[in-house]
């Protein structure tokens, strides 16, 4: 029994039953398939993180964002600047207590280098209803190249707990044709 010492003292010499051996081989092979699937997707798939990131002072990041807002603001909405940066450009999104700043307006099927960083605590970039979720740290500038493939209005929810106003932290991204 499993609660007593093994009945065969030389238990490591006992042969393995065929059915267990078959299962081990299947399970091991499946593990290899899952492992190589991740590597395969880096070549064949379209959804991968570049892992491009820099250390940056929050204030420096805020300056980049402000420069972008000054240059490309098109209108204002509920006190948020709406910014329409040119395709292919560097786009900055500030996470802070408790806002995603500014609102972005992007063109469908165009690529943008989206920079994410926090001014204070950790935040979670959660693009809805697409459901893309990326962690946002203070002191790190994470660059994700995004290519919106559908037009519409998208919400940016914070999904890392960031204090009492966490549930009010909603941002917006417009994608236009």
């Amino acid at each position: 029994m499993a609660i007593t010492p093994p009945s065969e003292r030389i238990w490591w010499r006992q042969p393995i039953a065929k059915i267990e051996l078959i299962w081990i081989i299947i399970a091991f092979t499946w593990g290899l398939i899952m492992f190589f699937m991740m590597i395969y997707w880096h070549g064949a798939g379209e959804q991968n993180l570049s892992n491009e990131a820099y250390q940056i002072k929050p204030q420096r990041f805020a300056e980049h964002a402000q420069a972008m807002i000054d240059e490309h603001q098109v209108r204002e909405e509920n006190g948020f600047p709406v910014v329409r940066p040119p395709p292919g450009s560097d786009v900055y999104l500030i996470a802070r207590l408790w806002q995603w700043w500014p609102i972005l307006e992007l063109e469908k099927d165009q690529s943008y280098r989206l920079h994410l960083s926090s001014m204070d605590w950790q935040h979670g970039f959660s693009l809805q209803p697409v459901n893309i979720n990326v962690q946002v740290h203070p002191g790190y500038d994470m660059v994700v190249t995004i290519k919106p493939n559908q037009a519409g209005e998208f919400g940016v929810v914070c999904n890392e707990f960031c204090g009492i106003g966490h549930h009010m932290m909603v941002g917006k991204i417009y994608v236009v044709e």
Partner: protein
Amino acid sequence: MSSLIDYRTCPTTGLRVDRAAEKLIKANAVAAIVFLAIGGLFGLLVALTRWPAVHFLPADWFYLALTAHGLDVLLVWIIFFEMAVLYFASAILLNSRLAAPKWAWAGFGLMLSGALITNVAVLQGGSSVMFTSYVPMQAEPHFYLGIILFAVGALIGTCVFFGTLVLAKREKTYEGSIPLVTFGALTAAIIAVFTLASGAIILIPTLLWSLGFVSHIDPLVYKTIWWAMGHSSQQINVSAHVAVWYAIAAMVFGAKPLSEKISRMAFLMYILFLQLASAHHLLVEPGLSSEWKIFNTSYAMYLAVLGSMIHGMSVPGSIEAAQRARGLTKGLFEWLRKAPWSNPAFAGMFMSLVFFGFIGGISGVVMGTEQINLIMHNTLYVPGHFHGTVVAGTTLAFMAITYILVPLIFRRELMMKKLASWQPYVFGIGVAGISVFMMGAGTLGVARRHWDMTFADAALPFDYPSAAFLMMGLNGIFAVMAALGGLMFVVIVVGSVFFGKKLADDEKPSYPEVPPASAAVSHYGSSESLKIPGTAFLVGIFFVAFVLYYFVNWKYLSEIWPLS
């Protein structure tokens, strides 16, 4: 020396029981269940708040309750119970005395005071930082201090376990190799040392930071090391509850592992590879390479997952083989149909096995896939997954073995037997519902750790799909059911421990039925003739579900915006 030890002889197993070990098992188990009750209550409050139609607590209380829930059940309940399991698997199963019981009591005292201090810190309201306490968000210093004391206490208990193994070997209290269950407990203890050391490495500087002696803690470094404790401590649970599965299979059916070699190798894989799981929490963080993420998140090519899949066949397989050896050989499933489903120890153990595999296991591997994590990270899918592993898996297994421990260790007849036979179903199905509906809501994007899914106070409007609200309502209903199951457990166990009929030292308990050691099935025939077609069929269903669900999620991923 050993002549001074106070022993009794167990009338059921014939084992010599060191009363010092017995007292420690009792103390740790009682403390565990008290914190299970407290943490479970906080969990109910959290679920009632996340139920959109009820939305019970205000925001500040919600985050306080969520922090307390995580700490009390994920850390305190489970580790106290694991201490009881360690002492049981060493001193009792090895027929030995416990090494250094005074140290074990000191460890217990530290754990208890640490747990109380951290609970006080949380209840004071200034430490609603969640279980993970990610920097730079800061808690009160005694929040960290309590966790550190708790961890040091647990480390002492783990050392007492190692010491007992050495003693038993030296005093030759058993023949041959240690039992498989003790081997599993040893696995858990080795992982615990790594885990507790990681906790100390990160929480001691964090304590100093909260006191003002350290100026800066890097949030990414914190997260990497914290999860070497946070995730690896869940691997202690996996090792411990797999050991408990084997123990219950042995105690209820006299089942013998299909192959000692294979089962021990599977435990060894846990020691070698489970520690890499810190990466599961870092798949969408800046500053880490994909090579690092892929190697670590897959436990080096899924070798630890392989360990679990081996146990997934070995545990039910050993039960099937034992039942067939007793003549329950009709068809694929007579052995399972005629299993003692009204015995809460068996029912809890078997549901734990099924839910851990199908709900917790599959979802964990899928979510831990580097790219698929993008569509799940920090959504409710995450707590959905770990309620499948830690609650439906570990907690249910620990509840199941408690029904055996109450008569054997506390020497009390179990009370409310009818209620006890229902308890695993109420709790197990409740928790399975919680897991599935949270995973469903997470797939629809709902954030975890979030007070208001309607975003009523936000400056910009946003709505989740209405199906997500339905999921959260169902989650609330099943949470109430699970809470009821938890309450039943606490009432039955606390009632029996304090008011159950006392068993004399030589009296055998009548319930739950445990066959005498002589009924053990020692041989299933040669390895060529082992027949476990029912288990093979169940494992086949599991494998097909796993493969389908895995690729369905790649399909979902391929539909989101291209990212590079």
